[in-house]
Structure formats: structure tokens, C-alpha cells
């Protein structure tokens, strides 16, 4: 019977699909393209990182400036991500739970930073706080350095990661509507209780998803940070900037060693992201990917 079945499928493939040979050809092309454009670069990061041996790899990571860069990157992400989470929650609450004029426009505005080149995202803060600006010298007179210092790096990072949490939460919360909150309020809960006990549990996986993407970008941002950091070794160089400096100094192995840490972060992000999508697909997105 099995052979009979196979014979029939062979004779005629489903009317809404392609012949298996065509399928295999297309799969082959797609997989080859993905392998060359995506997998190969990822592989080469780790390959190059270990090209001078494990000892050199760990030596590069243990180096003083590398350590400082790792610390700075973590600090920047730890500041920028929570701020964007607060913003994302506030924006999605206002947008999803209420009807008001200009809402669609506001949603478009939130996505705006995505269409700004990272270098320009850094540039705007240079113009705002740099020499010749009004704010820069004013703050400097109080001993506050923004440019070529931590605040500038954080600001530029916030700019480029601005939409990540909000754009995850807005469609999700819009999809969930206001029924649950209205029910909680009618049962006597106050606003905060409703938010913490009803809304947050409903959106927790979507929030985590947004945080994940926001964090990956925050730790990896290069262009915007390059413009505002001044690249003072050991002080204002984040991991990606340190990678660049090492690479430009022809210390490729060390550059790749540090880069492999960032690639690992990317991999962990992808794995967690996929797990979230597979396990909680429905609770993450209102069909937006």
C-alpha cells in the first residue's frame, strides 16, 4: 500500500504546490544564499577569534581596555534599556487603551528613529551639546560633560533603540483591548493595581521580547556612539568601538575575540527570541511578524 501511495503522489503533485524537484531547487538556492550571507559571517567571527589559539583569545578578553569596554557597554545598556521600557509602557498604554486624535501620527513618529542613519543620530547630539551650541558650554560651566562622555553615549543609544519596546507593545496591547482593565476596575482595583496585576501579566512575554531586541541593539550600537564618544581608550569606548580600534591597529585576533562576545550575545538573543516566538507566539505579537 505504501508503494501505491507513493506512486500516486509521484504521478501528480498537489495543485497548489510545486513539483518536488522545483521545491528542492528553490530550497537549495535559498539555503545557499542564507548560508553565504548570514551563516558564513557568523562562523568567521568565531573562527577568526580563535585563529591565534584559545590562550590569545582569553588574553584579549582579559586585557584592561577590553574589560573597561565591556563594563561601559553593560552600563550603557543598563541605563538606556530601562528608560526605553518605561517609555514603551507609557506610550503603549496611552495609545492602546485610549482613543484620541493624532494617534496614528504618534505611532509613525515613534518609529522615526528607525529611518534615521545612526551617524545622524549621533550628530544631532553633537550639534546640541558640542562646541558652538548653547547647551554644551552652559552644562560645562556646571562641570557636566555630555559629549565624549557617558551621558552622550547613553543619549545616542537611547535614540537608536527608542522604538524597540514601544513598537512591540503597541500592537499587542491594541489587540488585547481594554476589556481586562475595565473588568479589574469594575471589581474595585485602582489604576496601579490594574496595571501591575492585569496588564503586565498579559504583556510580559511581549515586553521581554521587546527588551531583548532593544538590549541587543543597545549593546551593539556603533555609528551613533562612534560620533559622540570621542573614543577615549579605556574610558568612552564601548565594545563595538573597541573592536574597531583593535581592528584598525591590525590586531585582528583581539578585535575578533571581543567581537565574538558580541556575536555570542546576538546568538543568545536569537535563541531566546525564537523560543519566545515558538512558545508564546500568540502572547507576543498581534500578528506583526
Amino acid at each position: 500500500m505504501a508503494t501505491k501511495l507513493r506512486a500516486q503522489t509521484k504521478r501528480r503533485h498537489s495543485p497548489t504546490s510545486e513539483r518536488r524537484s522545483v521545491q528542492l531547487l528553490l530550497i537549495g538556492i535559498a539555503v545557499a544564499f542564507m548560508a553565504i550571507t548570514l551563516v558564513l559571517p557568523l562562523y568567521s567571527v568565531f573562527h577568526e577569534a580563535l585563529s591565534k589559539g584559545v590562550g590569545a583569545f582569553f588574553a584579549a578578553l582579559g586585557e584592561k581596555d577590553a574589560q573597561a569596554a565591556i563594563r561601559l557597554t553593560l552600563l550603557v545598556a543598563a541605563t538606556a534599556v530601562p528608560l526605553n521600557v518605561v517609555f514603551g509602557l507609557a506610550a503603549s498604554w496611552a495609545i492602546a487603551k485610549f482613543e484620541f486624535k493624532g494617534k496614528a501620527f504618534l505611532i509613525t513618529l515613534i518609529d522615526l528613529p528607525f529611518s534615521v542613519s545612526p551617524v545622524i543620530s549621533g550628530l544631532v547630539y553633537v550639534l546640541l551639546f558640542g562646541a558652538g551650541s548653547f547647551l554644551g558650554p552652559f552644562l560645562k560651566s556646571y562641570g557636566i560633560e555630555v559629549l565624549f562622555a557617558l551621558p552622550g553615549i547613553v543619549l545616542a543609544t537611547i535614540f537608536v533603540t527608542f522604538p524597540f519596546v514601544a513598537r512591540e507593545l503597541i500592537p499587542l496591547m491594541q489587540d488585547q483591548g481594554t476589556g481586562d482593565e475595565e473588568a479589574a476596575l469594575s471589581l474595585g482595583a485602582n489604576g496601579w493595581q490594574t496595571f501591575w496585576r492585569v496588564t503586565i501579566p498579559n504583556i510580559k512575554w511581549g515586553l521581554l521580547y521587546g527588551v531583548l531586541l532593544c538590549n541587543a541593539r543597545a549593546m551593539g550600537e556603533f555609528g551613533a556612539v562612534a560620533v559622540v564618544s570621542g573614543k577615549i581608550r579605556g574610558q568612552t569606548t564601548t565594545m563595538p568601538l573597541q573592536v574597531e580600534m583593535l581592528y584598525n591597529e591590525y590586531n585582528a585576533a583581539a578585535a575578533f575575540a571581543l567581537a565574538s562576545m558580541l556575536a555570542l550575545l546576538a546568538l543568545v538573543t536569537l535563541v531566546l527570541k525564537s523560543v519566545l516566538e515558538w512558545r508564546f507566539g500568540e502572547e507576543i505579537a498581534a500578528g506583526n511578524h
Partner: protein
Amino acid sequence: MEVRVQNVRKEFDRFPALHDVSLDIRSGELIALLGPSGSGKTTLLRLIAGLETPTAGKVFFGDTDASEKTVQERNIGFVFQHYALFRHMTILENISFGLKVRPRSSRPPAGEIRRRAMELLDLVQLSGLEKRYPNQLSGGQRQRVALARALAIEPAVLLLDEPFGALDAQVRRELRKWLREIHDRTGHTTVFVTHDQEEALELSDRLCVMSQGKIEQVGTPDSVYDHPTSPFVFGFIGESSELPVTVENNELWVGGRAIGVPAGDAQPGEARLFFRPHDVELVEHDASLAGVVSTNRRVGGTRRVELEIGGAGHLVEVDLPFDHPAGEKTRLAFRPRRWKLFPAV
């Protein structure tokens, strides 16, 4: 075009959807495939269309073995429950599609295609909407476009899968009448799938009742309704009440009492009595089925009474005119006027 389905079996991943089904569809008739969901009716329709390939068995269109042909070659018109209109094409483009994709040798000239499409648009009473997009039409209008599109290729057989399933009751009834008219005018051999018995009874020349991948009964709506050949068909088509009875001395007994219904040629022993709630007569003194009224509701022009019969508490329903005096009573005795006896399971 007559269609013969011959000993067709279909399995999806070893799960049998149809067991050895055979059905002769006469040329020009309107036949309904009726059954609950999972009965295999849609699978049978899709096998006729060529959208599925049978695991075993054959489908003939006239004398040609259609099992050897692809869906494109079968020249069938198929109407989907959710219309499946091409959303990026205008109504006119949708209807002309089947003619436009023909190979050059058999494709009519553009003017002819347009003329035919406009004619069909007129047939489905949508003239003037040819430049609209499907998104701009109501559900009923979309389904009419879908039918016009299927008719445009002058199909050998017209197949409709729950064509009114996505529409609301009012539009459904209108379209039902209208489909009958179109069929009478064009005379296509038409097979349609439905789970709605009223739709099947009203619309079809013959109906084919299916259950669990098998054909239960095929016949005209009247004969299926009046002479169901299985408990399933009796229960599925129209209202029915069922009661376990005993056959003894050529008579039916319930709880040790004869109920005044002859057993005919039924074998002595346990049996199941089926009757229609509206097909009963109330009796006073003779042997009858007597029961205690458990609920009593007026439904429009009739009164539906639920009776508890015998000690075992079997519930049956009978219908009375809503103003019948017996509707006030707490006990009722009746005899079915027409009934059917099936062996006990």
C-alpha cells in the same frame, strides 16, 4: 456531464477520510452532499474537483477517467465557502480570469472574453459593479461573483463547497432560491456541500447523506425524509424522537405495555423506534405511548412538549398546535402516525 465516483478511498496521513465511496451523479442534476463536519463530504467534493488525489478508486466524467487528469484539465467550476476571490483584481478581471489563462489556441479574443464576462455579471445580477474590487462588495455579492467566475469557463461540472456557509441567514435564503434559478436556467451538473439540512432539502434534486466517511443514503429529498434507511439519517434529516422498544407478538412494547403500534416484519427482541415529533396523534383510551410532561414550550406556531416515558425516564418530543387544549395537561398519551423501527445497537 454525468460523474461517477467509483470505490474511492482517501486517507490523510493514514487517517481515513473516505471509505470505499461510490456515487453516480446524473447529468444536469443538482445534488447535495449533506453531513455533519468530519463526514467526508468536502473531501469527496475536492476529490471530484481534482484538488485531492484519491488513495484508491476512480472518478469518471462521462466515460473518461478523470482520475488521470489534473484539476486544470478537468474543467470544473469550483465555488469556495470563503469566496476565494482575487483581491487585487476587479470583478470583471476575476470573472475573465479563467478564459484569460487559457493557452492561445483555445483562448477567445479579448472582446469576446469581455462580452462573456459582462453577460455573466448580468446573470448574477451585478451589472455595473465590474470595476469594483472584491473588498468593496458584500458577502452575498462576493459569492455571486465567485459563481460567475466559475461559470465563465463553461464547466463540465459545477462544485460548490458550503457556498452559503459564511453568509447570514437572510442572504442565505435569497441566494439559495437564486442558485436554484440559475441552475434551472443553465442546466449544469451541480454538486454542493452543506451541513444545513434545510438548505439541502429545499435546493437539491437528490441528496447524498454522509457520515464518518461513508455514504448513508442517496435519494430525492422526499424519499430520504420519508424513508430514512438508518438511524443516523432519521436523526440527521428533520426532527426526530427515539425510544427503545421491545418487539413481541408482532407488536411494540414499552415498559411491559403494548403501545398500539404493529411491529410489521421486525424480529422479536430489542429495537429502536423513531418518529417525527409533528407526526403523532393524541389518543385517549387505546393502547398508546403515555408520559409525564417534563417541559412544555411554545415555539412560534407549535407547542413542543417533552415527555418522560416509562420508568427509565426516556425523553421524547411531540409537537402540538400551540392552542391545542392538551397542551395544558401534565400527562399525554399519543401514537406516532408514521414511524420507523431499527434494530437495537
